[in-house]
């Protein structure tokens, strides 16, 4: 992989963001609105009930920020590809001397930048408005976020592969894929809330271990290293499978002439 090419592609995404305020809105506006809605909702419920509610608020706000890491990282991969489709620039990119791995690496890197901006913003807002300090997680944030980024990249590759194969008809998958796993990934509630068969599904999803781990840290103040190890192991398997799926679909797209079809839609 050539760092110059990855750097050029990342710079291109940065230019696209600075030249389009809608992209900035996507980066800042939606996460902020989500945080406000979830934050005020939980504040309202807190006032209506008694018991250990501050912990519930912390669970929800933490889960919302963590979910955003996964969602934004997946979006960076899928939307970057769509950006080239929408601007009818895909052929220019694919006939340039760029390896597919470099193209993907650039979307991963840009995803990290996007996630960092969004998370810093949400962390400041959550601290100011709901006294939720994301940095209470201390160094645990790194393994948690790393796992969510990895899983987001896997989902991004799967979404992109499906769009490449089925074209515009599959565009909605860029947004839908993460939400297909959300109910089973125990984002806002613990796994034991799910019916037994769905619990089996939940434990097959790497992000489940992160969200469960996050609640453990908030509740007990200690990191569940077993969860972290399982999440990392599963993530590596998922990443390899998603990469293989992407490579297969890319090959199929070249066999069937689908890249040129997607590019001219």
């Amino acid at each position, binding site marked *: 992989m050539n760092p110059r090419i990855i750097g*050029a*592609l990342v*710079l291109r995404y940065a230019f696209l963001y600075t030249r389009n305020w809608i992209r900035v809105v996507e980066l800042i506006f939606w996460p902020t609105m989500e945080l406000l809605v979830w934050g005020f909702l939980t504040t309202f419920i807190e006032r209506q009930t008694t018991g250990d509610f501050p912990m519930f608020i912390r669970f929800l706000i933490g889960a919302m920020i963590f979910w955003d890491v996964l969602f934004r990282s997946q979006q960076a991969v899928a939307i970057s590809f769509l950006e080239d489709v929408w601007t009818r620039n895909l*052929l*220019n990119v694919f006939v340039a001397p760029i390896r597919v791995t470099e193209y993907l690496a650039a979307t991963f890197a840009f995803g990290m930048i996007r996630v960092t901006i969004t998370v810093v913003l949400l962390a400041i807002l959550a601290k100011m408005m709901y006294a939720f300090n994301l940095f209470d997680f201390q160094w645990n944030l790194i393994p948690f976020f790393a796992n969510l980024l990895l899983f987001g990249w896997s989902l991004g590759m799967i979404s992109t592969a499906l769009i490449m194969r089925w074209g515009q008809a599959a565009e909605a998958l860029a947004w839908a894929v993460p939400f297909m796993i959300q109910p089973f990934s125990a984002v806002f509630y613990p796994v034991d809330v799910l019916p037994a068969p769905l619990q089996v599904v939940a434990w097959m999803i790497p992000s489940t271990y992160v969200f469960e781990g996050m609640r453990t840290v908030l509740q007990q103040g200690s990191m569940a290293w077993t969860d972290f190890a399982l999440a990392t192991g599963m993530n590596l398997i998922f990443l390899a499978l998603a990469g293989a799926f992407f490579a297969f679909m890319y090959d199929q797209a*070249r066999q069937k002439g689908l890249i040129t079809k997607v590019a001219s839609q």
Partner: protein
Amino acid sequence: MKNCVLSINNLRKVFGETVAVDDLSFDLCGNEIVGLLGANGAGKTTAIHMLLGLIKPTAGSIRTFGEDFAGNRIKLLKRLNFSSAYTNLPSNLKVWQNLFIFAKLYGVPDARAKMDELLELMEITHLKNSITGHLSTGESTRLNLCKALLNDPELLFLDEPTASLDPDIADKVRKIILKIQREREISILYTSHNMREIEMVCDRIIFIHRGRKIAVGPSEAIIRQFQRKSLEEVFIHIARDGEVKDKEETES
């Protein structure tokens, strides 16, 4: 032995039951402009996309600069480039931003100097800080050509470069293409539906019909071969006569 930048042998592409390109063979040898002609659906775009590695051939071989293209795609793509009327550069970026990114992707050593040189050549220096989406069709075409020349390509694929341009701008673009081809000794594979343009620009023509090569040669030779008055008449004859026989095939 000829020093060919592109050698295509028995290239074939089948999509399901449709044969898009059938047993296509030709060479593109040093410093010439070859026109790839055919009606819509004849297989031109599929052929060009195979030559660029966007589509995998079903059979046959492509040798670019003497090397197997499939096995050395990234290395060989550095030495060629492509411009089409049907692709754009991102419309919300400034002209210089688009060129700068592609200069970096192609590893152009002094990107800024190269950009300035090409913008001047295309007579669009004044648009350097303009938003790409605000350019006219003619200006966009010239910007696409700037992008296609950033890496000093030895082989250039031009897919209908003057489509949807008015005659004045089309004439300017053609003159620029001829100038750079002469000055930089670039080999060009050129497609167009404008037969007069093909006659003006191309040294040699390859006519394809239903994926098969049916005639090769300079335009005058092809006009004579088909006993027509102009290349346009030949085109119409071929497009409407689905059963052009292999015996009509000729080499100049």
